[in-house]
């Protein structure tokens, strides 16, 4: 008997089962996602910088010159909001399609399918980190004073990553089952743009709606990032608390939906 059975891989699965294999798979898929996004374009990653830059310029012109909004350092203020918003929209939009656009990962080989979602979110985390890193010099140029509180920025980006991952866990299998989810999500994101303090100050929201309004975790992340960059302050406990509660709820809901829909995924693709 020359054949030794690998007992730790009982019940099927890939050859080198276990944590290291799954880590390798997640990282290689994230890397592939990231590469694919910027393949076949001359400017590559720099395209993703053009979008927030163009928005910032247009919004600054419209709001500062035409509407005479009274927010100090408006350009930097709006850019920070945009960067947070972009991580959320791009991250969840790609999380939404990550299973549908990689059917072979579901139908050809068995691996825990949440790794596909995780790798998509990780690819977007990398994108967001690079975007922030590249725009920080511009923010400084716009008058932002870099302080020690900047060290808190990774925490904010990490929390947003968890929000993106939690949403994607729900959206990816739902979109595999009901393909209209991509249309629905597009509308949700369009509404979301105006439900977040990207182009207006939160203080303009009428007082009786203010509390409900302030429960939006993306708004809290925007305000937190602005505290760090514009006021050299740590985010408030309220802001971080809301975000942490939202992260927990979103990941729990995402895990439940994913768990429910995962067994039939191969048949939906």
């Amino acid at each position, binding site marked *: 008997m020359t054949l030794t*059975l690998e007992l730790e891989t009982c019940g099927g699965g890939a050859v080198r089962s276990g944590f290291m294999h799954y880590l390798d798979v997640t990282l290689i898929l994230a890397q592939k996602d990231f590469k694919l996004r910027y393949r076949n374009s001359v400017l590559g990653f720099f395209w993703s910088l053009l979008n927030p830059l163009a928005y910032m310029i247009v919004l600054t012109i419209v709001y500062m010159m035409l509407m005479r909004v009274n927010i100090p350092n408006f350009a930097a203020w709006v850019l920070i909001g945009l960067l947070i918003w972009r991580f959320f929209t791009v991250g969840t939009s790609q999380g939404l399609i990550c299973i549908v656009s990689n059917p072979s990962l579901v139908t*050809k*080989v*068995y691996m825990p399918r949440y790794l596909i979602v995780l790798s998509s979110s990780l690819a977007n985390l990398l994108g967001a980190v690079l975007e922030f890193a590249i725009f920080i010099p511009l923010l400084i140029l716009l008058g932002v004073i870099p302080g020690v509180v900047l060290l808190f920025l990774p925490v904010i980006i990490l929390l947003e990553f968890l929000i993106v991952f939690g949403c994607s866990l729900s959206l990816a299998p739902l979109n595999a089952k009901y393909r209209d989810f991509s249309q629905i999500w597009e509308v949700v994101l369009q509404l979301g743009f105006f439900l977040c303090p990207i182009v207006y100050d939160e203080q303009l929201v009428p007082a009786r709606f203010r509390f409900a309004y302030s429960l939006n975790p993306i708004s809290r992340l925007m305000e937190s990032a602005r505290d760090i960059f514009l006021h050299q302050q740590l985010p408030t406990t309220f802001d971080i608390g809301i975000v942490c509660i939202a992260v927990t709820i979103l990941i729990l809901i995402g895990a439940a939906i994913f768990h429910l829909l995962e067994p039939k995924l191969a048949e939906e693709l």
Partner: protein
Amino acid sequence: MPELLEVRDVWKRFKIPHERRTTVLDHIAGAASVIGGARHSYEEFWALREVNLALRAQESVGLIGPNGSGKSTLLKLIAHVMKPDKGKVVVNGSLAPVLELGIGFSGDLTVRENAIVYGVIMGISRAQMRDRLHLILEFAGLERFQDALLRNLSTGMQVRLAFSIAVETDADIFLVDEALSVGDQAFQEKCLERFREFKRQGKSIVLVSHDMQLIKTFCESALYLQSGTEKAYGPSEEITQKYIEASQGPANSNR
């Protein structure tokens, strides 16, 4: 000694969306009613019923039967990609992913990048993959094209790449679904040689094929499926003969 692979009384059901449209008018009405919130009824379709299979270590099995008889579905259940509605699939060893056409590369990545991604998915570590990459590309005969985008390769070349990566994995059981029929003669011969080597190493192959000669060469036993049920199961020699007779019978009598 437990079986390497055991499929015990497995049933698999698919739901087929079903709209009753018999006349042209029905079709038009049906199209209209879809817009106006149609009722969808489903037809149940049993892709597999009461299927059993047992495979001891070092043995291989062939799955044969006409198109749509449930061979690929069974392979997917063995691969744990789908779950049976009833019954159990037990695997006491490691599985290589299902090898079939269109394994799912990304056309926009290069041959080398695709090879690494799929090697890692198939269970080879990234470090090992870097070491073995040249072997894989050499086996596939694609060294010259390693920096070409995959979409510029022909289907046959893509299958060669997929196959070459898969045979580098150290699985106990290989699941092969018609993958061999695409490569050219020389590559097929290379693959068969690799299969013989697997057999010598005591690895098992679950082979879906319409090539009875291939089944007889590599598999000790064969399962003949028809409309999702077992028609015959036993030594490959005998079962392939049955299948050949069954498929020739009606054709001959028609003439």
